């Protein structure tokens, strides 16, 4: 099979293309690698110049991320019983003791609740709306769709002050519900438009066949349309989650305590006991993980492609 082919690229082309892709990937990955490595450096290593590529890894950043610490005098330190675990040991090397857990765990959980909650809500509402827009005769359909799209025509932060005032009046400031509703409102137009495109691609014959086969419209939607829209739902969910997960401006403005998400919290670590870059990097690394895992889990659906072949066009 060494014959020259029009559709199959030659080995040399593949090799060159592969090298370029790997190079590009390496370049784009440098900041991520930097953050990942910095998380395992000691504070002096993290700010040394020239930067250290080879260094002795330390968990200090992660310990600092999850704890609050207080400085003690050498005398007090000497009077303490031996350290109970590795975290205590690391902290004592810096003449400090662990005072308690930091707020990072809580803030991270807030991010999970708000991020996944708003993603679920956006997809749930978006799928139903997209199905209705795709299949039913709706008065002023085009205008409604344009109206939904128009909510994204300015940056969401442009309406930050009205929203801030509304949320204060409604008692939604600094609540999980408030943030979920806000991110859903921002994501819903994206979800409706993307999903409508995917559902438009699914031929109506499937539902019509199901209707004749004895199913109700909702059952046809559930059993026939949803499984085929899985690809679209998965990719839309990823987009929604990435926005809600990374959102910073509204989170700074509207949350301060109970519902504060990780993005506004991570920078505040810098202020605790000097420039603690390893702790910031550790927080950023952990913060990246959920979106990464979510994307990897849904990758199968993204790659599977849209249904093809079963309906003759």
């Amino acid at each position: 099979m060494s014959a020259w082919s029009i559709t199959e690229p030659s080995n040399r082309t593949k090799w060159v293309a592969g090298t370029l892709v790997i190079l590009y990937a390496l370049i784009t990955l440098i900041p991520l690698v930097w953050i990942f490595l910095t998380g395992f450096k000691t504070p002096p290593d993290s700010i040394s110049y020239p930067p250290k590529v080879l260094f002795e890894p330390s968990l200090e950043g992660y310990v600092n991320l999850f704890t609050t610490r207080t400085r003690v005098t050498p005398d007090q330190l000497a009077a303490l019983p031996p350290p109970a675990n590795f975290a205590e040991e690391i902290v004592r090397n810096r003449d400090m003791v662990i005072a308690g857990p930091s707020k990072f765990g809580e803030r991270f959980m807030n991010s999970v609740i708000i991020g996944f909650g708003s993603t679920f809500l956006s997809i749930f509402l978006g799928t139903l709306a997209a199905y209705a827009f795709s299949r039913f005769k709706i008065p002023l359909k085009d205008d409604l769709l344009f109206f939904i799209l128009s909510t994204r025509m300015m940056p969401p932060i442009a309406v930050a002050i009205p929203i801030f005032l509304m949320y204060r009046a409604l008692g939604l400031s600094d609540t999980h519900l408030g943030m979920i509703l806000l991110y859903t409102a921002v994501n819903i137009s994206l979800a409706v438009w993307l999903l409508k495109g995917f559902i438009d691609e699914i031929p109506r014959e499937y539902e019509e066949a199901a209707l004749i086969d004895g199913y109700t419209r909702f059952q046809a939607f559930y059993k026939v349309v949803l499984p085929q829209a899985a690809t679209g739902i998965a990719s839309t969910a990823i987009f929604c989650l990435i926005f809600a997960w990374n959102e910073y401006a509204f989170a700074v403005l509207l949350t301060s305590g109970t519902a504060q998400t990780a993005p506004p919290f991570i920078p505040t670590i810098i202020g605790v006991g000097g420039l603690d870059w390893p702790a910031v990097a550790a927080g950023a690394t952990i913060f990246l993980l959920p979106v990464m895992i979510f994307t990897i889990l849904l990758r199968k659906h993204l790659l599977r492609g849209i249904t093809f072949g079963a309906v003759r066009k």
Partner: protein
Amino acid sequence: MAEVTLRALSKSFGATKAVVDMDMTIPDGAFVVLLGPTGAGKTTTLRLIAGLEAPDAGDILIGGRSVRNDTPAQRDVAMVFQQYSLYPHLSVRDNLAFPLRSPILKLGEEEVAARVAKVAEVLQIAHKLDNKATQLSGGEMQRVSIGRALVRSPQIYLMDEPLSSLDAKLRAEMRIELKRIQQDLGATLLYVTHDQTEAMTMATHVGVLDQGRLVQFGTPREIYEDPVSIYVATRLGQPRINTLPVSLFGPAPEGTVTIGLRPEHIAQGSGVETRITRIEHLGDQSRLHLHLDGHDIVTLTDAHTQLKPGDSLAIRPEAPLYFDANGARIRQEIRP
């Protein structure tokens, strides 16, 4: 199975009249073929009966009961679509079982398995049951699609050009198979096609549609031998009926403008002289293309004819059909 009656059924899409004032009775156990060109309203008629479209006027009775306000599920019909709409996320087995697992039927899994196995055997797809629907060839997909209708015992089977995507050999096989299945089951079947061979070979009754109107309904033989208009006459017959001005041949009933001559209704050897322009040898017979006063005529002759293009041939019409200026049939006999 049941008798299905359409009463003054009409349906428009915007300015397009898809079905106009249609009356038709599909007898219990009949194989009715709706014949007509694209846009004649064949598919719309099926969709109206299935309940996928709501009629603008008129009524549909299945087994004597009006189903106008019933959902497709309540009407208990099965439909095979022109596009073989198999669910791509399900296996062939689950595709076939899908109608049987519907909340309306709710059959036990044993019964479902038995019926699926039976239909798979009839349609020769038993070895493909565990394949994904997308892993089948076009012919197999269409057989599964037909199978999905056959697993049920509905009031009526509706089929929308189910064989149009198959190759010629498979189509011929499926024609015989479908007819056999219909007879075995005693099923009532409404079948849409623009293929006259399917109409002639399978139908007990043929309905000819023209721009949403049912112009003639009868047995295939009636439609072929006794058409009500030129339009109906040209629907059936291969080669097509010759339509010629009345002046070319002798006497005709009053009002005749056009005569229709089936290729086999032309006697050779006496009558009007024509010139042979072309001969097609088909093996079992030959087609003669004749020229007469600026009109082309096609007729048949035996396979080993000695005639050559350029020869002249005398022909005489035998039992022609007479049509008036509007194309309607004139049934009057010629007075001697």
